[in-house]
């Protein structure tokens, strides 16, 4: 394991369960590795594969997608849609040279602060073991994203 290496994790968490769990982890003062940066979405069903690839392209060593437990989705079944997309994307990641373990989907309920802490800790350890993501990801960006890239880079 590379001890010097500090992996960068992007967490894309749903508003109702996994984001609430990280709020609760805070309220209960759980301590976990500082490697995660969180982006909140309303539902894990919002998360498209392009966003995950974009994160890898922007330097994430791992991406955590957090949703509600099966059956508990605030929007009925958005988490199942996330499951389908993540499962499919995981099968494609090796084609980009990305280990599938770098993408993690977790169901974390709103009161599961401990689960959240453990997940971040485990994921950080996994990524430390895998080391930095070295591959360059080709530009697979939707039309709307292109404008973003151009804008931000200028």
């Amino acid at each position: 394991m590379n001890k010097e290496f500090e992996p960068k994790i992007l967490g894309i968490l749903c508003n109702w369960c996994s984001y609430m769990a990280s709020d609760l982890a805070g309220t209960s003062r759980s301590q976990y590795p500082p490697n995660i940066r969180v982006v909140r979405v309303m539902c894990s069903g919002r998360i498209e594969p392009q966003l995950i690839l974009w994160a890898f392209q922007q330097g994430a060593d791992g991406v955590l997608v957090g949703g509600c437990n099966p059956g508990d989705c605030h929007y009925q079944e958005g988490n199942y849609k996330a499951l389908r997309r993540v499962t499919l994307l995981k099968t494609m990641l090796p084609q980009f040279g990305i280990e599938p373990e770098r993408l993690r989907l977790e169901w974390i309920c709103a009161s599961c602060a401990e689960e959240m802490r453990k997940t971040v800790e485990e994921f950080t350890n996994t990524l430390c073991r895998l080391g930095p993501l070295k591959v360059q990801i080709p530009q697979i960006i939707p039309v709307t994203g292109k404008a973003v890239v151009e804008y931000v880079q200028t």
Partner: protein
Amino acid sequence: MLLRDEFSKNGDIRIGVYVCDCGTNIAGKVRVPEVVEYAGTLPHVVVAKEYKYMCSDPGQDMIRREIKEQKLNRLLVAACSPHVHEETFRNVAAQAGLNPFLFQMVNIRELVSWVTKDPDKATAKAKDMIRAAANRVLFHEELEPLKYHIKRNVVIVGGGIAGIHAALLLADSGEHVYLVERESSIGGHMAMFDKTFPTLDCAACILTPKMTMVKSHPNITIMSYSEVVEVNGFVGDFKVKVRKKPRYVDEENCVGCFECIDACVFKDARYPNEFDFGLGKRKPIYMPFPQAVPPVPVIDADTCIEFKTGKCPKECLKACGERAGIDFAQKEEIVELEVGSIIVATGFDSFDPKKMPQYGYGIYSNVYTSLEAERLFNASGPTAGELVLRDGSKPKSVGIIHCVGSRDENHNRWCSRVCCMYSMKLAHLVKERTNADVFNFYIDIRAAGKGYEEFYNRTMEEGVQYIRGKVAEVTDNAQTKDEEGKLVIRVEDTLLGMIRRIPVDMVILSVGLEPQHDALEVTKMFNISCSGGGWFMERHPKLAPVSTMSGGVFLAGACQAPKDIPDTVAQAGAAASEALALSHKGVIEVEPNTAFIDETLCSGCQVCVGLCPYSAISYDQEKKISILNQALCQGCGVCAGACPSGAAQQHLFNDSQLMAEIEGALAGVL
């Protein structure tokens, strides 16, 4: 969607960044001045400030002033979770004339300072998150909140003391209430009790008048023997389906004379009455207890001869005569209610002591649960208020075992809060009715409440004995002559430091409270969450104790956590006033995070049509594109996540915003 050209048309972007110390909550870990200095270097940021409590009046004033003075057109506040103060700062923006959706909250407390050990790492993380938000707000646009009309009806699920109290408050202030109760009578657990601690008010004397008021209130519709089966819609406009189970007695026609019960072919009651936990008997047509509301009997189809054989002389029908109350043909009915808000007051279940066979429940006949003891003490219970053993004799000694199923690693870890107090009450009643010796076996006495400690002292003065120790077992294995024919409670007395054997005639198990067995299905139906142990989760444990994460759904009573009657009533009042506040406002403003479809980009592939869980998207045959109905959209964004051409987007979470945020979040060096 904002293309670069369109974007530049928006003119000069001026971002203000306000970083909160939150006392030492944030500043104790994150080096705020350093973060502020860094924020000031970010593109388009024209002002970055630190303040001790940004949410306080002076903090808010500062932001309002600077929005105007500095002509800010984007606002970032780095403080606590958006679930805590997003609304506060959106209002601040709006008051200063800035569209509230040009604001972004950055959570550097719950997500950073509170969970990170190392101040360097915490500071770096806070910077990253502010950069992410500063990137994101470039792509924010002005939005108008969506407004919905609030229907003025309320459905209350559960007719215990919580539901009853909330129903009366709401009904008195003019709202129409549907009180749904799955048993044949409202009243819940409180109706089973004899006395209430610590004042020893008779439960029936304080509850039954309220039950009668519910019955006669013009603004309350009692739906007893009914269960909610489906909930659709959202705050202000819920559609609730209720299944009315057939009770085979017409509630409209029944006059409550009970001649049918007297006339039943079974001259003697012979079936166990569920309300008395089988300690009393009932007929196939019965009232669970004399004060039941509505005062309408119910026929149990499993024991009624007419239902079993079809050959009953139907004496009940004859006795009822032209009042035509008895209706053997009654069928299950589904009623659809349209309401603006929902109060969930489904109460609790008690722990099943059969899970702890060492205490002998179900093995030794004179081991009772506390609720069974309540029924024995109750004047309208199976023994008319006499505490007697199974053989009809009065006990000379009674052991009361606390914490059965509670504070136990093997069962429920929580303290059930009410058991110490109700055990003392039962001990008092044993003394009062039988003058038997009473032993309370406790782990700790928890008597925190108005008049509770005083009540504890009073029972000690009355001669109730308290033995500190968790009981190991209840056995009939006698070792001495004194123990013969008795139940022996074996316990380590931790104050004496020795093992004791205490022979008693009767054992009462103070069973703990646990969530209703079907609590999980209830959470799914109402789209609410559970906290640890399966209790329903409030929106915020301190500041929103009766709200849930689902707008318009409120909690009252022990479904949220174990609580006693005063707390339950207080919470029911709070839930009622929340529902009232909502309906009196008349309209509710909802975050406009709905989706939209860019007609110029939509290829008409219809992938979104099938994915939308609310059928908000349809296909326009003429234009050959998908059309989104804003009124039905709930803002999950699943269409935006699926659209291959980027045509479906979600306000506040569109592709450019999320990508800019992700890029900003990852641009730092760890």
